[in-house]
């Protein structure tokens, strides 16, 4: 028997799945990796710890499941979070930790670039919003603030690039991760000279640019032995978690959109054209030569509901946040749609799409004497979804879609899925499981191996749950409140700036 393994290098965990050739899950394991915040704006991960965690989790899955059942591993496909940057010296050794997508140290670099004519040009060619998340601005930050270190840097890698280099000795970056750096011209698929110049680097300081189906090279002998893998096990560079999630949810071309709600969130569509937005609100990442994943990210997804749960949940069992969250969701379902006029802006972490305002903060609006704790709770969930709706709404100015799927654990909760359907007034799929990223990696592997003739054919095999249909009355209610939500989100810009300044001082 044969199998395909997928490895997902996420921001807080490494997840390894084993699939049979038909895409059925044989087993999976995860291993936690911490994010360090040495300063409030900083967000870093230890590349060696991620490497060791990946080895450990992979090895356990192989030893517990794959080897005892005599599965032959045909290929291992990688996916990773976008926007990470790791500087390595001329021996390939990391110069400190990797900087993750959540790091905001390059705020100044991003703001300056965004307001310049160079910025507009760079956004047009790279498709990546000018934001401190992008490696473009992070590398510029290192250039401006760590001059000595910058001189010693031989290459700038992504976390996945480092892991692959450790395994095979090759330096590579796939189209998807590359298109999230802000350094890649996504129309020509080559490094963009103006962006490189702003970052202060040459293309020689970046890994080789390759399609997502590319073999990352031969697994080093020692790892073949310790993992018990044969020399013909193929390592595929794979893609980014964002692109894989869309692929794994069966989104292919127009008419469908995908919502991710994890800690943060995103709304994404796929198409064969770049989505050009004069206001620079959307990202465009490359899956293959003619497949662009476009959309907008939010900072304030599930993490905001978690925050509320930690403050106000019951915690009958210590540390059981899932249980407390489910209880709260149950409680929220007792309040009618619209929370009887209580509106919540969820911008506790500042916001990216569509308002792109790092100073935005949370707001309760419209509190009256009849509102109870349960109203405050339901308003939080509605606020998170209004924000997700606002991304989808602006996306629809460019690209129409008829239905939606949700990945992340929230996509399995009927109450939550119904709310999304009602707010969007579109059918939304309710699902049993949520491993879209890994399934996307399986589809890439299976297509590369010729099990499917094309990605199009592969994507058609994705089986998702049934549609939940929207309730018209609820939709009408939500729309009335959404109008106020949308107005407040931009109207409060001056006050957001004032309060953020006070909070930072």
């Amino acid at each position, binding site marked *: 028997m044969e199998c395909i393994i997928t490895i997902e290098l996420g921001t807080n*965990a490494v997840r390894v799945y084993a699939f049979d050739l038909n895409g059925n899950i044989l087993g999976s*394991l*995860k*291993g*936690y990796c*911490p994010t360090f915040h040495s300063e409030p704006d900083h967000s870093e991960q*230890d590349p*060696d*710890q991620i*490497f*060791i*965690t990946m*080895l*450990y*989790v992979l*090895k356990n899955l192989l030893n517990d499941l794959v080897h005892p059942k005599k599965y032959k591993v045909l290929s291992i496909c990688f996916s990773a979070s976008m926007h990470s940057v790791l500087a390595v010296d*001329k*021996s*390939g*050794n990391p110069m400190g930790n990797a900087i993750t997508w959540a790091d905001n140290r390059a705020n100044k670099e991003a703001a300056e670039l965004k307001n310049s004519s160079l910025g507009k040009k760079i956004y047009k060619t790279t498709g990546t919003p000018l934001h401190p998340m992008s490696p473009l601005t992070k590398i510029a930050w290192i250039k401006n603030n760590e001059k000595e270190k910058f001189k010693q840097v031989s290459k700038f890698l992504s976390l996945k690039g480092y892991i692959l280099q450790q395994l095979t000795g090759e330096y590579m970056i796939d189209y998807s991760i590359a298109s999230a750096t802000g350094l890649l011209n996504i129309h020509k698929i080559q490094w963009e000279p103006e962006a490189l110049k702003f970052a202060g680097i040459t293309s020689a300081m970046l890994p080789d640019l390759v399609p997502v189906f590319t073999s990352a090279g031969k697994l*080093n*002998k*020692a*790892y*073949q*032995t*310790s*993992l018990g893998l044969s020399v013909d096990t193929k390592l595929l560079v794979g893609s980014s978690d964002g692109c894989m999630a869309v692929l794994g949810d069966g989104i292919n071309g127009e008419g469908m959109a995908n919502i991710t709600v994890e800690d943060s969130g995103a709304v994404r569509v796929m198409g064969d054209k770049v989505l050009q937005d004069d206001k620079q609100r959307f990202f465009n990442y490359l899956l293959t030569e003619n497949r662009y994943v476009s959309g907008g990210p939010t900072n304030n997804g599930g993490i905001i509901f978690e925050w509320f749960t*930690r403050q106000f*949940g019951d*915690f009958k069992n*210590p*540390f059981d*946040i899932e249980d407390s969250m489910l209880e709260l969701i149950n409680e929220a379902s007792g309040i009618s749609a619209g929370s009887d006029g209580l509106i919540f802006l969820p911008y506790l972490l500042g916001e990216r799409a569509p308002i792109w305002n790092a100073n935005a903060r949370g707001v309760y609006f419209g509190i009256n004497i009849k509102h109870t704790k349960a109203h405050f709770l339901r308003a939080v969930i509605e606020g998170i979804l209004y924000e997700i709706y606002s991304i989808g709404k602006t996306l629809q100015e460019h690209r129409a879609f008829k239905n939606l799927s949700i990945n992340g654990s929230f996509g399995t909760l009927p109450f939550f899925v119904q709310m999304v359907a009602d707010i969007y007034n579109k059918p939304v799929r309710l699902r049993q499981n949520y491993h879209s990223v890994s399934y996307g990696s399986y589809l890439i592997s299976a297509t590369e191996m010729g099990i499917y003739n094309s990605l199009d054919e592969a994507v058609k095999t994705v089986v998702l749950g049934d549609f939940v249909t929207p309730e018209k009355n609820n939709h009408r209610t939500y729309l009335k409140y959404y109008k106020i939500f949308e107005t407040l989100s931009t109207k409060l810009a001056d006050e957001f700036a004032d309060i953020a300044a006070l909070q930072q001082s």
Partner: protein
Amino acid sequence: MKQFLLCQKNALELRLFPHITEIGVVKNSAIRLNGFLNIVADGLKIYYVQEGKFEWTINRQPFILYPGDAAIILPGTEFGNENNVLEIGSFSWIHIQVKANEKGQLLKGSWSCLTDGESHAISKILQVNGSTVLQKFTEAGNIFKSIQSELFNQHIGYQARVNHLLDEIFIHMARQFSRISNPGRDFPSTFMKLEYELRRDLSHQWTVEEMATLVGLGTTLFNDKVKSYSGFSPVSYLINIRISEAIKLLKKPDISLTDIALNIGFYSSQHFSTTFKKLTGYTPSQFRKNHLRTK
């Protein structure tokens, strides 16, 4: 409680307890200037307020204590009233001889019944929190009362009882501190704190019990929580941190394999080498050779 003061130097009651340097109760009905001096403590001191309101400084930080509050003063910490004033009210205190070893661990001595692991974990918790005030620490008041009556009545078994009661103070302090810092809501941040402590003292031979104590959980629940949150058993997670650290150290040419092994908590370079190879396929020296070569 009545006023009393027993000092190791001259109190017969403390003859069997060389580790108790001082124990007493004061009831003060008028403000006394120069009645409460600023001192640097060499043992561990606990002051428990029964009545009144006291403004004390610990490490030059001001605290206000109300009845039920206790000041926990670690060895070497400055403590007293800023103006040396003894305020109106009543409080009890005990000074216990504890020594800090070269790593800063507080050693209680042979009188204690706590196991080495428990003792180490408690010492960690006290140091993480530093000298400070524990609010509503009424257990301390009750234990002080019991110690006092044991010392004065000297019924059969009082020597063991007093030492047990001292252990109990330490246990209650540790539990109260970990309850405050881990209110049972946010496992990710609790786990981050644990991770931080593990990394800070990686050479220590951590046990699961110690780790569990540090985050204020029983061992079984701790195991379950760590496993479901991180995918690792606590010990595997620790090994992972150790090997990640090893990878960094191996890339520096000037530190020996034995030193690396001991620095990151393996008891021998052999033990280090086996664990490293099991995970990476390379022995540490092979790994080092591969990475010191300039590519």
